[in-house]
């Protein structure tokens, strides 16, 4: 047992009693990173000097009223698509390999206000495009449970760091499942909040109508603490929702008697039998706690992947047009005109997955194809959202697996983007509908973690956290750690 295995509340208690110092916590994290990260590859940039300086500053406050916040002094890892003032932010792209932001993303500001310590920036698929973390233009992340397998993506670094005990908690971002799927593959807890609950200001945009930041943690209680710190309206983000933020921690009552669960039959069709068995066993646990579940149909599930890739790629092609080698980022060496500068900088700066999605999006938005692809996908998005709206009229939550399989071998799908995209079939529908969803560990298949996905009504994170916490309290899957 190391400090990194303790719950955030336990660490907070020990800091409050001065049984621990922030310097101890930071030192433990870097010791673990030095021991394991050469093999795992979760980090792209370490903030060792800055973190130790910050720890020394915070240690002077220990025991005072200023140190009472629940996240005070707790070190965090940040996915490398959230800008951090003075700390390199690359989006795992060669294009931004020299980018040193001049401001903080709102989530980073909020964590700083809570006086957490930033350990470093976490590896990811380039510009958050990918489901395996093999698209990082620096190096892939490896799954701590089996180093020959992927950790999932695009927040693969964020999930692997928590699983490997290289971070107390991390932030990830989710566009079509990029928090939940890696959380599932790595055996940790990942929460994608309702679209608009957490500010996207300072998140390098991939698909603006889908992107959402959320916590990746060892357990559900930690996720509630972190969500509490980062949720809330932000005037700097025009898509930020102005809603009241409840007390997520007090929602963890353990009480789910009478809760109505919908289990879509489409989510159990064609998935790995061991994954299905783990999910059905989880439903039995919830039943034992007084919940009731019924099979339902979300008939448009099978259309979600096609709609998502058209919409996300279209938005990406627009968002990534700002990368031109003029104002920031790496400019290609060339001797031509301004158009050559754009062409060379973009062609050298972006990797193949990013180019593929930019071209798919450009095609879907181009004259003559807009109605057939982009508009059609927007209409199918409506049908998918209506599936959820109808289901939530009768049920409190929807439950199913997070991914159809466990983590796959590195390199096994890298030349087949369509197969890779289909891995996200169980996380994409919630992103299109904007509803919150989380993945919690629910067992193992051949030694690899399986994730249970709990989906809620818009802005009802309290209920999915309550269900996840009740489940977690009666199982011990989340307590298992990989041996590295």
């Amino acid at each position, binding site marked *: 047992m190391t400090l990194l295995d303790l719950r955030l509340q336990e660490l907070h208690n020990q800091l409050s009693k001065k049984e621990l110092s922030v310097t101890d916590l930071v030192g433990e994290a870097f010791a673990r990173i030095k021991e394991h990260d050469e093999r795992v590859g979760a980090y792209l940039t370490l903030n060792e000097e800055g973190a130790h300086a910050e720890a020394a500053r915070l240690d002077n406050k220990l025991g005072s009223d200023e140190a009472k916040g629940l996240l005070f002094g707790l070190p965090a890892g940040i996915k490398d698509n959230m800008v951090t003032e003075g700390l390199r932010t690359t989006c795992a792209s060669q294009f931004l390999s020299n980018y040193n932001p001049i401001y903080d993303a709102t989530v980073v500001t909020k964590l700083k206000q809570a006086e957490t310590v930033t350990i470093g920036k976490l590896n990811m698929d380039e510009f958050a495009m990918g489901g395996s973390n093999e698209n990082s233009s620096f190096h892939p992340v490896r799954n701590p449970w089996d180093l020959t397998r992927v950790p999932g993506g695009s927040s693969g670094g964020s999930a692997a760091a928590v699983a490997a005990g290289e971070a107390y908690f991390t932030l990830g971002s989710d566009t079509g499942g990029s928090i939940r799927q890696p959380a599932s593959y790595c055996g940790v807890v990942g929460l994608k909040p309702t679209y608009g609950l957490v500010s996207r200001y300072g998140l390098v945009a991939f698909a603006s109508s889908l992107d959402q930041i959320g916590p990746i943690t060892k357990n559900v209680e930690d996720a509630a603490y972190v969500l509490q710190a980062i949720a809330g309206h932000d005037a700097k983000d025009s898509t930020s929702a102005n809603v009241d933020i409840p007390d997520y921690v007090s929602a963890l009552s353990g009480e789910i008697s009478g809760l109505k669960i919908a289990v879509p039959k489409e989510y159990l069709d064609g998935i790995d039998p061991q994954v299905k068995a783990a999910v059905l066993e989880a439903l039995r646990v919830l039943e034992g706690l007084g919940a009731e579940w019924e099979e339902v149909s979300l008939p448009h599930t099978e259309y979600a992947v096609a709609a998502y890739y058209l919409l996300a790629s279209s938005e990406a092609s627009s968002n990534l047009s700002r990368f031109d080698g003029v104002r*920031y980022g790496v400019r290609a060496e060339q001797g031509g005109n301004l158009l050559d500068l754009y062409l060379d900088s973009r062609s050298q700066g972006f990797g193949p997955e990013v180019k593929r999605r930019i071209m798919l999006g450009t095609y879907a938005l181009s004259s003559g194809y807009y109605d057939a692809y982009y508009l059609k996908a927007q209409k199918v998005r409506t049908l998918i959202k209506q599936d959820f709206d109808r289901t939530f009229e009768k049920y409190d939550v929807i439950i199913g697996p997070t991914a159809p399989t466990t983590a796959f071998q590195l390199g096994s799908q890298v030349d087949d983007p369509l197969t890779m995209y289909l891995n996200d079939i169980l996380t994409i529908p919630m992103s299109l509908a904007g509803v919150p969803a989380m993945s919690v560990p629910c067992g193992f298949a051949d030694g690899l973690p399986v994730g249970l996905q709990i989906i809620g009504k818009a802005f009802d994170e309290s209920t999915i956290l309550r269900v996840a916490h009740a489940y977690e309290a009666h199982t011990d899957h989340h307590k298992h750690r990989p041996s590295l």
Partner: protein
Amino acid sequence: MGIQVQDVEHVAKLARLKLNDEEREMFTGQLNAILQYAEKLNELDTENVEPTTHVLPLSNVMREDQVHESLSQEQVFRNAPDEEDGQFKVPAVLE
């Protein structure tokens, strides 16, 4: 409605990407597979369905028109690949 190499070349030009021969070949095959899969959406009748561009009921976000301090020139150019005399430097636009 398969796409050809010349379509990929055209899209790459619109997207300000320069592709080599190998990439042109690879992306033609991959984009064809993805677009063929996307044809699946045509199984659905969406004639009377409103498109969802956004899940939140967004309306214009207004604020007071107040003067704020802007970024300093030093901040603006901190990440610039090339600058001169307080301007981003690029190759000549007009020959």
